[in-house]
């Protein structure tokens, strides 16, 4: 058995991975620091601001030591919206994928709704769900919903016909086919959908928190923008990037465990 050859990262890979951000930082530093006037703050100022946001003790203003609260608020919305999206999109996708009537009923409408960007839903969401966290939650839900739905539909529809024959020949009855064949066979696609969905949940969190919520990483970014506190904007961006990255790594780890059998994941 040849697979499972080291999942670890080689020193070379690690160096290459770090090289691009370091170059970016250097370029950023060279183009912003030491200027009399720059709209974009230099990296060091951002780092100091991030520290103050996280732990306080530098500026001691309204924002000091509030990062945890904002992060928790955003995490709640991202994972809550994502979980709700999964809860709706997984069964719906399976129904659309496996049952022709449901597909004929819902697929055309979903095709029309899908291209509408989450941003465009913002005003309507605020009318329906009011100003505040419920609208934010809905927008994150929407961002995560379509990738999960589409990949689930694709997954359950593209089960190799041969596997149905094999199962029937081995004595699986019609009711058990779904659990014994369709579901496991479509897990890689479903997993891809979940991973993309969670990614999109992070992507739309800032839009989601443009709905007038007080806390959240998106909320402080929008607020800091109005106050021209660009260091806070960038500190918030960096935080979202890091959280999104960590969250994706966790999902991938889970995927590697659950989908050990799949050459693409295992």
């Amino acid at each position: 058995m040849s697979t499972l050859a080291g999942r670890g990262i080689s020193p070379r890979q690690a160096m290459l991975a770090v090289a691009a951000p370091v170059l970016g930082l250097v370029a950023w530093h060279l183009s912003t620091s030491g200027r009399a006037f720059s709209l974009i703050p230099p990296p060091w100022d951002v780092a100091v601001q991030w520290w103050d946001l996280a732990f306080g003790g530098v500026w001691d203003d309204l924002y000091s030591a509030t990062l945890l609260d904002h992060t928790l608020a955003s995490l709640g919305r991202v994972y809550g919206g994502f979980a709700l999206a999964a809860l709706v999109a997984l069964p719906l996708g399976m129904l659309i994928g496996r049952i022709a009537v449901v597909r004929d009923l819902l697929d055309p409408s979903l095709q029309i709704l899908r291209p509408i960007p989450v941003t465009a839903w913002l005003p309507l969401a605020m009318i329906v769900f009011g100003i505040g966290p419920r609208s934010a939650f809905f927008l994150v839900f929407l961002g995560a919903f379509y990738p999960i739905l589409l990949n689930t539909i694709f997954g359950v529809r593209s089960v190799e016909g041969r596997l149905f024959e094999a199962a029937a020949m081995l004595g699986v009855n019609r009711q058990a086919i779904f659990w014994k064949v369709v579901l496991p066979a479509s897990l890689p696609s479903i997993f891809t959908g979940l991973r993309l969905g969670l990614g999109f949940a992070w992507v739309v969190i800032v839009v989601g928190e443009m709905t007038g919520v007080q806390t959240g990483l998106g909320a402080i970014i929008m607020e800091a923008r109005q106050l021209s506190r660009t260091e806070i904007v960038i500190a918030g961006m960096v935080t979202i990037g890091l959280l999104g990255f960590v969250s994706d790594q966790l999902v991938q780890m889970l995927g590697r465990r659950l989908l050990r059998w799949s050459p693409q994941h295992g």
Partner: protein
Amino acid sequence: MDDLSAVGTPVRTMLPILDVRNVTKRFAFGNESIAALSDATLRIEKGEFACLIGPSGCGKSTLLRMVGGFETPSEGALLMWGKPVAGPGPDRGMVFQDYGLFPWLTVAQNVGFGPAARGRPKAEVAATAKRFVDTVGLTRFADAYPHQLSGGMKQRVAIARVLANDAEVVLMDEPFGALDAFTRERLQAELLEIWARTKLTVIFVTHAIEEAIILADRVVVMSPGPGRIVADERIALARPRDPTSPEFNALRRHLSALLGGHHQWRQPRRW
């Protein structure tokens, strides 16, 4: 077979295990229908090893898939122990050329799939799986996933899977067609050995004359356009058979001629 149990086993032994009666299969092709198989009649006795041989497109897979219950005859009747075949079932195990293994299950789980699906107790499933994994010589790979196996190993799993499911008839559609010559020979020998031990009934599709002569009690020769059975030859040679012996060669020539002389560049013969 239930409706016969009242009459007792003597009746049952008089019946062929498989009875293909004047079966024709037509497929829709645009708005026409073409006959993939025309008026095929064939009786297979329990324990027989029959090879279906013929050029590609002559309906071998179609016939085998009808026996498997994956297709229904357009005309004629297809009986197992005197009862019409209605859909796939565990009594007829199919070994597909492309294996058809469940990629998310380990070797042992694939082999135990049938018994598990039919609700056998866990311990029994595990024991059955282990026994047949051992039978096909994959003990060390019991916990490997299909993507970690070579083609020959995958085909062994596919064979173990139908054996573990207690199939009475094993249907094999060019099972060794995708394997290298060395692996193919080994699997042929292993298959014969398992068949001799279990007294399974095997219907084995191939387009290789030599493979048919090495394996079969009976070679059913088919010809295309439309697909039909043109000859049914007994192979009486003792096993293991020596492909270099004169008898083997005589059979090879004979079957080759029956197949229309494709292998000797002769004009097709009418039968």
